[in-house]
């Protein structure tokens, strides 16, 4: 069937600037193409070129690398080191037969939500024109859509799972708040599904919360 090709783009963002730029795009409700999946690194300097190659090898059609503006790296100068790797990597990709436009570098500060969003949309369109990478001849797009489907389930089915072994996934809780699904209208009208407003997390150390040390409370209680 002739559907429009939807590129799959993996994005590597730094915790301090570009990830926060993506957050700001979200807070501002700025709409952009849904084709990017972001991986958070502490710094763009953490980017190992292997990550980029493995992304392409795994089915990505494009890779976005984003960090703080030169001179503004939270770790002072590490984005310059990423820039060096990026420049060499682009050449390598061309030698391997991958169009260099599939790898894109965007500097985005934490205040540049709109810019980040627009860059993602622009990159999506560029990759769409380039077409799927189809590394090793695999049709990732078709496989992807199949993997994303779960077993068909009618909407009013009870919340028991088809898994036989305990513990059940999405188990119905007899007591406590309902696990998210609105029950069919109970007699007596609609009841609010659990707490009406989000309660902020109680601060650690508040009376109702026992403070717990970082290690598991009793050895052997939790496999870690």
């Amino acid at each position, binding site marked *: 069937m002739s559907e429009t090709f939807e590129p799959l783009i993996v994005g590597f963002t730094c915790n301090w600037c570009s990830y926060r730029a993506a957050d700001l795009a979200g807070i501002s409700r700025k709409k952009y193409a849904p084709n990017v999946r972001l*991986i958070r690194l502490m710094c763009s300097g*953490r980017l190992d070129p292997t990550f980029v190659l493995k992304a392409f090898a795994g089915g990505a059609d494009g890779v976005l690398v984003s960090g703080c503006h030169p001179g503004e790296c*939270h770790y002072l100068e590490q984005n310059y080191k990423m820039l060096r790797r990026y420049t060499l990597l682009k050449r390598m990709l061309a030698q391997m037969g991958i169009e260099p436009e599939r790898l894109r570098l965007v500097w985005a500060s934490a205040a540049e939500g709109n810019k980040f969003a627009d860059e993602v949309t622009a990159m999506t369109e560029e990759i769409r024109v380039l077409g799927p990478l189809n590394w090793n001849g695999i049709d990732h797009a078709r496989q992807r859509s199949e993997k994303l489907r779960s077993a068909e389930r009618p909407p009013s089915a009870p919340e028991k799972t088809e898994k036989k072994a305990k513990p059940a996934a999405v188990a119905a809780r007899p007591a406590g708040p309902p696990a998210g699904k609105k029950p069919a209208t109970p007699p007596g009208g609609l009841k609010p599904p*659990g707490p009406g407003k989000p309660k902020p997390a109680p601060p650690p150390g508040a009376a109702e919360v026992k403070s717990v040390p*970082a290690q598991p409370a009793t050895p052997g209680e939790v496999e870690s």
Partner: protein
Amino acid sequence: MLPDRHPFVNGTPKIGVYVCHCGTNISDKVDVEEVARWAAEKLRHRGVIVARDYKFMCSSLGQNLIEDDIREFKLNRVVVAACSPHLHEHTFRTACARAGLNPFLCEMVSIREHVSWVHTDRAEATAKAKELISGGVERVRHHVPLDPLHVEVNPNTLVVGGGVAGIQAALEIADSGQHVYLVEREPSIGGHMAQFDKTFPTLDCSACILTPKMVSVGGHPNITLLSYSEVEHVDGYVGNFTVTIRKKARHVKEDLCTGCGICEEKCPRKVIDTVFEAGLGYRKAIYTPFPQAVPKFPVIDVENCTYYERGKCKACQIFCPTDAIDFDQQDEMLQVQVGNIILATGYDLFDARRIPEYGYGRLANVFTSLEFERMSNAAGPTGGKIVLRDGVTVPKSVGIVHCVGSRNHRYNPYCSVICCMSSLKFAHLVKERTGAEVYNFYIDMRTAFKDYDEFYQRVLNEGVHFIRGRVAEITDAVRMPGEEGKVIVQVEDTLIGIQRRIPLDMVILSAGLEPRHDAKEVAKRFGISCSTDRWFTEKHPKLDPVATMTEGVFIAGAAQGPKDIPASVAQGAAAAARVLSRIGQGGIDLEPIRAVVDEARCSGCRICNSLCPYSAVTFDVDANVTRINPALCQGCGTCVAACPSGAISGSGFSDEQILAQLDGILMLNIESGDGATRMPELVAEPA
């Protein structure tokens, strides 16, 4: 089944996945029930044994879901798909800790800021959420329990900058019994506030309200005042900074000087004072910047002193009654240990020469705001008389131009906050002292805070003329009769819609505020960042304006952005409170995101050695391996990425974790519906 490239770290994975509705913020674009179902089904073979969706995961009931599941199902990993980890990572980590699970075994996936809030197609948003959660599940399998790094906090504090914000911060900390080193670049503390005449809106005399605080600083037993000094180098980390300070040579022995001022009186060299008097008046080559200076010791300006030029004079030494002059005094390098640092370095005034059409520097009777403050100040070069550049003539008409260099894409796009109020203040003072006709040329009237708008009403009632329009040109080129010998302001009066030329005797430019010219270097020296405007970057513009992203370094006052005196004082006090809270806790827990060298794998190639900006990476020549100091390491991971042997691992962001997340996002460990599997990995893994 695919060959498992990422076996579970310890034993059997038991992963709980929690998908938040966030009310309808997520659920209106992402089919959250379907996502939870999908995770339970398709990720079961990766260890997901429970997958729930819930309206508000961050609520206490939502957190209880996680805690109960950890206890009941003995979960050893948790993935929460909700908002940004920058908001609630701490919340969910703490919930896990309460249930007995190491908090670093919890991973958050953002499906709100990164999915539901930015995409419109429900199918695409749901698909993306599934892929991101798959990534989170794969990643969390590689998480290991981590313990925060606990460091002691030295109770001493360094405050850089002796303006009103720095003074306030220093006094608050010192009054609580802790020790403060206050470093000030100029010979005296006081900053810009010491230069002003009156302060709006009360018209308090600026020096009268500031000098009591300055005197408190000078005499405080808990404050070591290092004036005429600059910080050269900062080493260390929060709680344990080693700061190198250059105490510049005053050429006056501070233990002998009594501040009598005879040296200044007798000095024959007059120099234009470009700093304190804003270029409007003179000082001597040996000088104190102003009479109420703290400390009272004078300074010799070596570049303008006859003795250093020609070896002659020495009048100051001859007349000094206590023999305190020391021409051979050298700069002194001091090292102090502090636990926290507050940067309160203030602002510079926009250089009005950058706007040639305003004529500053070319036309004699165009003044800047700071020049006018000095003129109006009773202790200033004119004794408080408002006069033209000839020093004699009293103006009969004065114009005050707002927004000089501010709100202008050609210079600074931001508003400098204080210029409207100080322009109104100037208008009032001129009217009061000279009775001249006063014209204020404004764009908007920004009088936002307590009693500010009332002050505007007062000035309106005093008969000051207000013309709304950005001034186009200030010139002395005569075009109409009546303009001879005047400074002419050309402006569009936008409220009546005509161009006007207004001939005036004097024009005052309310120049905007800019960051210090060396703000970028200073930021780098302290390990914090500046915005592109060069104001210091705060941790969060709304919720955390005095902290920075660097633990242990705080900012206060105009260095963070243009603000008035009450706001600077408030920020100085706020920064002090934050520091005192750290000192009170005695120690601080640092995030255990660090790099670690596996010495067995290290080949001693030293590629990583040059990559660390924090000097955390050192080479042991005898053992021929690189070592990383965990207290200095900030966790950026650059060395991790650079190591060709894979000998350096980054806790919290290891190669295994990131590659697993990548595999998860690409769903490489999930079978597609028709049973077709991905081709086996063709590239061999590095040894």
